[in-house]
């Protein structure tokens, strides 16, 4: 007799877990998946290229409905299928339309919600987030009809949105509260280079700036953004991209222990041992997540336990950041600011738009920022993750892996 596994959330973390589980060869579950979006499973992080017009929705589908069939997974997708309650006593999940499914194991992968700045006018028409296909389609509509876009937030998502909208012909202004773009990924130098590159692509910046009020017209459509310094700019489309918050309302309502997110153990279990959680909705050892790499790692560990192997432990590693803007290469990893005990190796060639910074502590890489030439990002990441002592490599480390391959080759030749 198979057990019932129910997955809430048809996003990347949840479905990656399912894929891992299928890959493990275990056949102990009847799997049911609930998704609030009316699609199969798509690659959310590729929404930016869709916005730019470089990719279509079809391009970014990971698993279409057929795949669920092929793998004997029941998919409940669409607004009506959003799960509204979990009855932990009876081990039943209940969807908006009343669908009730029993579970032996439950996986919560509800992801995150865009953070909406609590200011006046945030509910005006023309104020959107950048989270899903719905948002993208909305923005594309504006691109065809309107002129002024304002993107709030100079983080990864905001900049990708700004770039996409600019590519689509809108006059885009990015409003950022910090003086450095991508300040959670880049230092000042790299942030400045990035800003220059985006300015060349027609993106405007207002930073540091604090948004005070969104002004609307009679039909409650946004028309302007007003800042704390009293200045204002015209606006037809306002994109909130100031981060996400774990989507834990459902878990909270069912009494699962939550702090910033749904608190999980190293085995990705919530305080209810039959309920697992992965992805942007969780909080693991005080961390919450916004990038894809740790999600995939969580999926692996979670699947390992669901399949009954039960030996993997999740550990958060520094994850690398890339900006999905064609022609702009940047890479950020780990502690790129460093502290009093760390040492900085720096390479910069502003005219060639290249900047590299390695943060070293006790002969190990602890942080990396690469701008312009990111070819060695993966190599640095492996040196960081494998805790390779770089003392002997230090002199040419910043120039990349090729110099070490060459040296190894030369030695072999001799």
């Amino acid at each position: 007799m198979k057990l019932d596994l129910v997955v809430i959330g048809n996003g990347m973390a949840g479905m990656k877990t399912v894929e891992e589980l299928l890959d493990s060869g275990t056949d102990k579950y009847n799997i049911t998946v609930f998704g609030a979006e009316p699609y199969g499973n798509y690659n959310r992080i590729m929404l930016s290229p869709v916005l730019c017009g470089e990719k279509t929705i079809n391009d970014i589908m990971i698993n279409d409905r057929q795949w669920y069939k092929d793998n004997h997974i029941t998919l409940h997708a669409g607004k009506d299928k959003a799960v509204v309650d979990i009855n932990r006593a009876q081990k039943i999940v209940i969807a908006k339309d009343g669908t009730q499914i029993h579970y032996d194991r439950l996986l919560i992968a509800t992801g995150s919600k865009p953070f909406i700045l609590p200011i006046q006018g945030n509910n005006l028409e023309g104020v959107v987030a950048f989270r899903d296909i719905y948002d993208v389609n909305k923005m594309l509509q504006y691109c065809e009809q309107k002129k002024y876009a304002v993107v709030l937030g100079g983080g990864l998502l905001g900049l990708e949105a700004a770039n996409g909208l600019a590519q689509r012909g809108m006059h885009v202004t990015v409003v950022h509260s910090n003086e450095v773009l991508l300040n959670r990924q880049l230092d000042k130098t790299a942030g400045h280079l990035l800003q220059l590159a985006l300015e060349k692509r027609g993106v405007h910046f207002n930073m540091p700036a604090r948004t005070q009020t969104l002004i609307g017209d009679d039909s409650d459509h946004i028309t302007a953004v007003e800042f704390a310094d009293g200045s204002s700019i015209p606006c037809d489309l306002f994109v909130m991209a100031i981060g996400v918050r774990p989507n834990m309302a459902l878990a909270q309502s069912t009494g699962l222990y939550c702090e910033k997110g749904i608190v999980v153990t190293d085995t990705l279990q919530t305080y209810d041992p039959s309920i697992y959680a992965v992805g942007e909705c969780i909080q693991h050892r005080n961390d919450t997540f916004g990038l894809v790499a740790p999600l995939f790692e969580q999926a692996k560990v979670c699947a390992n336990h669901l399949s009954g192997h039960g030996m993997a432990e999740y550990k958060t590693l520094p994850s690398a950041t890339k900006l999905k803007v064609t022609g702009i290469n940047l890479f950020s990893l780990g502690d790129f600011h460093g502290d009093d005990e760390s040492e900085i190796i720096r390479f910069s060639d502003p005219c060639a738009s290249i900047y590299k910074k390695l943060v070293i502590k006790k002969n190990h890489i602890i942080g990396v920022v690469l701008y312009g030439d990111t070819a060695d990002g993966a190599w640095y990441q492996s040196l960081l993750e494998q805790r390779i002592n770089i003392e002997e490599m230090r002199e040419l480390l910043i120039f990349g892996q090729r110099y070490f391959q060459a040296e190894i080759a030369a030695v072999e030749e001799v």
Partner: protein
Amino acid sequence: MTNKNQQKIAVKAINTTCSYCGVGCGISATVNSELREVELSGDENHPSNYGSLCSKGSSLAETLDLSSRLLTPWVNGKKSDWHTATSLVADKFSQVIKEHGAEAVAFYGSGQLLTEDYYIANKLMKGFIGGANIDTNSRLCMSSSVAGHKRVFGSDTVPACYDDFEHAELIVLVGSNTAWCHPVLFQRIKTAKELNPSLKVVVIDPRKTATCDIADLHIPIKIGTDVALFNGLLSYLYQENAIDQTFIQQHTSGFEETIISAQNDAFNITTVAQKCQLAVHIVATFYRWFKETDKTLTLYSQGVNQSSSGTDKVSAILHCHLATGRIGKPGCGPLSLTGQPNAMGGREVGGLAHQLAAHMDFTDECIDRVQRFWQSTNMATTPGYSATELFDAINAGKIKAVWIMATNPVVSMPDADKVKQALQKCEFVVVSDCVANTDTLDLAHIKLPAAGWSEKDGTVTNSERRISRQRAILPLAGEAKPDWWILCQVAKKMGFAKSFNYQSPVEIFREHAALSGFENNEQQALRDFDISLLANISAQDYDNFQPTQWPINSENPQGKARFFAEGQFYTKTRKANFTSIQFKPPKNLPTKQWPLILNTGRVRDQWHTMTRTALAARLNQHKPEPYVEIASADALLFDLKHGQLAQLTSAWGEMFARVEITDKTPQGSVFVPIHWTAQFSSKGRVGALVNPVIDPVSKQPESKHTPISIRPYKAKWYGFIISQHPLILDGIDYTVLIKGDGYYHYELAGEKQIRNWQSHLASQLQPYSGKLSWQTYQDEKKSLLRTACFANNILQAVLILSPQSQLPERSWLSSIFTSKNSTALAPDERLALLTGKPPLGTADVGNIICACFNVGEKTILSAIKDNKLTTYQEVGKCCKAGTNCGSCVSEIKELFS
């Protein structure tokens, strides 16, 4: 008329002579004087080189750029004109002479002067100023040969000639790195050896130099012990009954005393081996070969001459040839290889302080004769100061005005810092030179722009007594004038107009030729130097003069190849003098404080103080920095690592040099090249260390033997800059400038940290390049900084700094400045810049081995590997390396191992 036609008309073919060593190679120049374009090749008809040229000679056309030339007279740091400058010189010299006597003024000349220039300088000083304080840098070079010749032959006569190489069966090279210092002769010997496999070559040199490449026997003699070796040889020949009794009896005197003295000194091979620190079998082999080979030629150079017993060393060599009668016949004799293009010409006119003129000395009879010939008003009557004495006299305030011509004593003299001090103190220093900046010019009150090679017109004499024309191939640059003209202007203004009224060099040459024949006969005073047949030479014949070995007189109208086959020496008795000599160790021996011996010499591609060779980029690549060769055992003892900087100290001064560990230099001694000056290095003047010890007879300094100490120079930082433009880098402890093709390369090291490198560089580069951008690599924890500077994406400069002495390679970076001085770098090249390594897939040629064709070590190595080459000839065919001057062949051979 088309432009092309005009050019065709401007092009001329002119034969001339090389300006560098004493080989005296003929050069054929094709000249477009309007465009100052010159192409050179060896003169195939010149009997000294038959078309060959070495790396230095073949680069002469690359030294003709006017940017480094002195082009106007300067007076006290300001541009002046000839009238003002020569009047000042004349007035000041006249004033000093009036107040302090003729001994209070001096001339210091050079083997770079042409015979005509030299003649005028000597005539002015000894015939009209009335002093004899005229000496020359030839004192540093071959005055021991002069003294030895005069002592033994009675005259300064070189008995043999280069043709003897092709006749000899044994060639003994003593104290001569012929391969580097006289490369064309080396190639000639090498060819002779290839044509005649029975020809043996012996190299006597403490170091295993590149010359040993063709040696059948290398004798690594202890520095300064040559007298014992050749006294031992004389004893051995006597004992083996291998002497020519007839020649000795008929043509020599003093043999009995000399052989006893030689036997006392070096009785047998064992004694010799001990004194010279040699293996017995090596000495025995050399002696046996010498005994068995009638056609033995001994070539010797600075290793013999630059010694406190230089005259004795020369004498000891000459003795062995006299005792065997091996002199003046094809394939045998002693032959001194002179260092400079016209050292011999200087000797002929009497350019040394103890000579009077035309191979006449300060005897009453000769003074009278020369006075009558010159119709001079004020003849010098006693010898003047030799070089070291002359600068001592300046230092002591005895000489108050000095005129230095075509030489750089602040670098080349022993105890050179003292020479510098002396000139700093001197009331009146005149320097005439063709270049604008030398260490000596820096101290001049009056700078006079002299004609340089390519403009000079006159004659020179090479090591085999061959007089050749050095012809002007280009018009005089700027205000430059020939040295004879400058001297005559001053002479006229000093009141000697009648005797210095020359219009052209041929007039001077005629007078010089006439003096050589004046009363030159058995009845009056027979001299070897006689070119009286040329006393009435026409201007046209002078222009067309073909290289000829003196004497050139009625007896020898075509000149003469050899002297003394039939004796007829230039002593009163016409017999040569054997002189009893004993081995004497060098003056200053090593001590606990100064445990090593400093040996000095030339490198392959540089000449003297680099004023011209350093202008030819390809000549700066072979040995780019001042270096010290040290044996591996000594390196261990003194804690030195290859490539590190070392500080060398003697009782007289100090210098820095890059360490080259090589067992070619014997344990207990180090070798440092002579060339580097303050123009190219902050602390690279080896002259500052050299002991001011001189041979009591020849007065030649002992430049090959100074006790020193050595220690690693541990700077706080090391670095280099390669820049498109010249930089001023003051206040850095160690700097060396290496001029390359399209770049200036500075090697740096220092104690004091320098902040704000970028702004230092920016302020100097901006005037050339405008707006700059920088690529920077910094590891602050490791105090590592590397930066590249661009203007409009064209690379302007690269700076590399590190607290470690190990720095990235320079060769690829330099090559970028040569090839990309006006185009942008490819992106991968740009990103690789600060590694010093080419991006993958780009060839790094390595250190330049062949300067003629600019072929690098790595190119040769891969040619050898890829094509499975086994000989250097194959390497030559494959990549041309070693096929021009051939002086890198020994280094190519080493690459096979």
